[in-house]
């Protein structure tokens, strides 16, 4: 009898997960209806491409957070890291060239992530507090370095490279697609990826099965930092400037929303890169469409906040059944 009951529970989990997808689709469809009636421009190819491009850097950061959340952590410092990396790269690029500038962005992102990882994995500090603190430190340093000014002295080659669209596909979208594909492969089909889920589900059991738990935790923050660096490259290219403002508070909310809407569990052990990407597009779509409908920016914050609460509730009820 027990087995039968349990099997039904298993079905329940799948059903509740579907509920999340259905809810996201329903919201998107409702919005679509409004847009069709009041802002038909939204459906132009150009605007759709715009949503994709706007969502691409968010998508890359959400993939980074997916790694961290799968092991049961959180990284609030991603936007601050991204702004920090963008600014450092903007200092370097006019002097040492495009490649040096891009490399600076990637390495500085990786370095911040490695610091977070070190603190969480070996010093056993709480991810929430560590990344909140590093967010503050790095955010402060970025403002101080730039005097709150935006830096826009980039070589033309930088824009030529990252704003091009081979075969009509913008480079930003390509980067997102490639990173999403690699992340999906890593998470679903490598020993490393499997170990991440195991740590998130039950760190004790993972350690018993000889998984190097500290290294795994560390690596996810390093990846998250590195992808923040990648997002820095994409965003500076799109905006044409780098400033401390890139990492404004609203971005943290967007990244977390993207992951939660995309089915990445805040309790760890579940989530996919593709989900995070779809979540990022969903968030961008909401911002973009509400904007097109003439809704205030502050109202979009209200909508996103409510979306987070709804999806965390779904995560909660599906998570409760599966453990």
């Amino acid at each position, binding site marked *: 009898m*027990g*087995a039968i009951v*349990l*099997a039904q529970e*298993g079905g329940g*989990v799948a059903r509740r997960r579907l509920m999340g997808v259905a809810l996201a689709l329903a919201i998107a469809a409702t919005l679509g209806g409004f847009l069709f009636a009041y802002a038909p421009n939204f459906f132009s190819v150009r605007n759709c491409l715009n949503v994709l491009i706007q969502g691409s850097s968010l998508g890359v950061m959400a993939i980074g957070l997916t790694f961290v959340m799968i092991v049961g952590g959180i990284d609030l410092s991603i936007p601050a890291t991204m702004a920090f990396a963008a600014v450092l790269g903007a200092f370097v690029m006019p002097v040492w060239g495009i490649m040096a500038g891009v490399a600076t962005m990637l390495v500085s992102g990786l370095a911040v992530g490695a610091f977070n990882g070190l603190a969480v994995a070996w010093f056993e500090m709480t991810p929430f507090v560590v990344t909140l603190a590093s967010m503050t430190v790095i955010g402060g340093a970025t403002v101080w370095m730039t005097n709150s000014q935006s830096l826009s002295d980039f070589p033309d080659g930088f824009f030529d490279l990252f704003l091009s669209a081979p075969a009509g596909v913008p480079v930003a979208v390509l980067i997102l697609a490639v990173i999403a594909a690699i992340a999906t*492969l890593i998470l*679903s*089909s*490598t*020993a490393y990826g*499997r*170990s991440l*889920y*195991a740590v998130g*589900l*039950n760190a*004790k*059991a*993972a*350690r*018993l*099965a*000889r*998984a190097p738990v500290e290294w795994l935790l560390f690596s996810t923050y390093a990846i998250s930092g590195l992808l923040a660096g990648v997002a820095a490259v994409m965003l500076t290219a799109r905006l044409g400037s780098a400033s401390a403002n890139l990492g404004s508070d609203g971005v943290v909310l967007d990244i977390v929303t993207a992951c939660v809407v995309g089915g990445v569990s805040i309790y760890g*052990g579940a989530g996919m890169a593709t989900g995070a990407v779809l979540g990022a597009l969903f968030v961008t779509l909401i911002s973009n469409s509400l904007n097109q409908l003439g809704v205030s920016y502050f109202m979009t914050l209200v909508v996103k906040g409510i979306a987070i609460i709804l999806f965390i509730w779904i995560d909660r009820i599906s998570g409760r059944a*599966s*453990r």
Partner: protein
Amino acid sequence: MIGAALEMTGVSKTFAGVSALEDAHLSIQAGEAHALMGANGAGKSTLMNILGGIVAAEGGEIRIAGRVASIASPRDARANGIAFVHQELALLASMSVAENVLIEDLPRRGGLIDPAAMAARTQPLLDRLGCGFGPQDPVEKLGMGDRQMVEIARALASNPSILIFDEPTSSLSAREKARLFDVIRKLKAEGAAIIYVTHFIDEIFEICERVTVMRNGRIVGSGATPDFTPGDIVKLMLGDIHQADRLRVTPAAPGERVLTVDSLSAGGFLDGVSFTLRVGEIVGLWGLLGSGRTEIMRAIIGLDPIDAGAIALRRNGALVPVSPHEAHQSIGFVTEDRRGEGLLLPLSVARNVSFGNMAAVAGRFGLIDRNRERTLATGLVERLKIKLNSVDQPVRTLSGGNQQKVVFSRWLASSPPIFLLDEPTRGLDVGAKSEILALTVQLATAGAAVLIASSELEELMRVCDRYLIVQRGRIIGDLGPDADRDALLAAVSETSASSPTLSSVA
């Protein structure tokens, strides 16, 4: 006979159709300490939880000082003068002694907590226990023994007539234990009825007037402590140990040494543990619950830190010193906590098996090949006769025995030279137990060295070639394959009485 302080008769309880307590009766007199003993799952906790109002009894009667009492909640228990002194110190470390003692009923004035009244109520309790610390001291500054006193003071705060001590000495030093016993004697002299739950047999002869032994949810013996020998109590606890058929012939010549452990010590739990495992042998780690069996295994593979000691493993024909972390790489460990530590419950059987065996399921470019993963799992499922619908089924939907086989199959796939099995049959039905034991024998026959711990002697006797006797974190003996039931029972009981008790040393 004068009326008992507490009289429980005909108390029963079933959990999900399984009987946890059957027709239990317990009679405690005022002014005496009554030991309640039993192996894991004997029903002690259920009986005490009924008394504490945490679980509801099905039938039976509880009389307190002669009057029928109905105990439906912890509040009722308190109102009936029953108080618990909990084992692992459920104290709020950052709060003061007084706050901890009075947590269930903080004195208030005008809606705010009244610190003066709090101190005034706590101080007499501390004086009664002879404590050297004050009501305002923070609990985190106190040692284990003093914390235990705070627990007792908390229990005394409701002025109970019946006090239940649950494993009170498990984290105390010898000196602290002596002090605890003085306090218990004083409480007895004041007329309290004390129920003393413990696994340490020597303690009951020191402090308890009467003893009741439980097994499989029943009371199997009860009487004045001096009428029993330690051996009697162990026999009652473990029950009739029928020499079940051995599943294995002990190999004639011992194999080469594959693991040596030398003077392993860890934080008061392990004290100079040394032993050797040889190729193809099954060694039983035999001791009562709380003797340090689990701690020995966990220390060897680095799950718990060690203070001192050396471990060496056979590699390329020679014994090489290794760290516990390195030892873990060559050792398959089956934990006693299958669901909490052994398995990834929401994941499929196939994924549980392949986790830890990633190299075996790697396909092109080192990526996981789902077909190989399923083939590996399917092969082991057939070999171990695991009952399931599909290897894609979440492992949490399997029965306990089949879950345990999944744990084994994970290690089988990588065939480590050494296995540490901690209570591998815990919570399994008789058939599943035999299958797991048969599997253990197969491991040894295939050349692995196996160290197995179990609370059930008859199980060890079916498979073991040798027994290491564990007591209080030490290995106090090594018995050969011809050790019979009585010798093994004597090894864990008589030594505990004949060895000097720790309190008398202090």
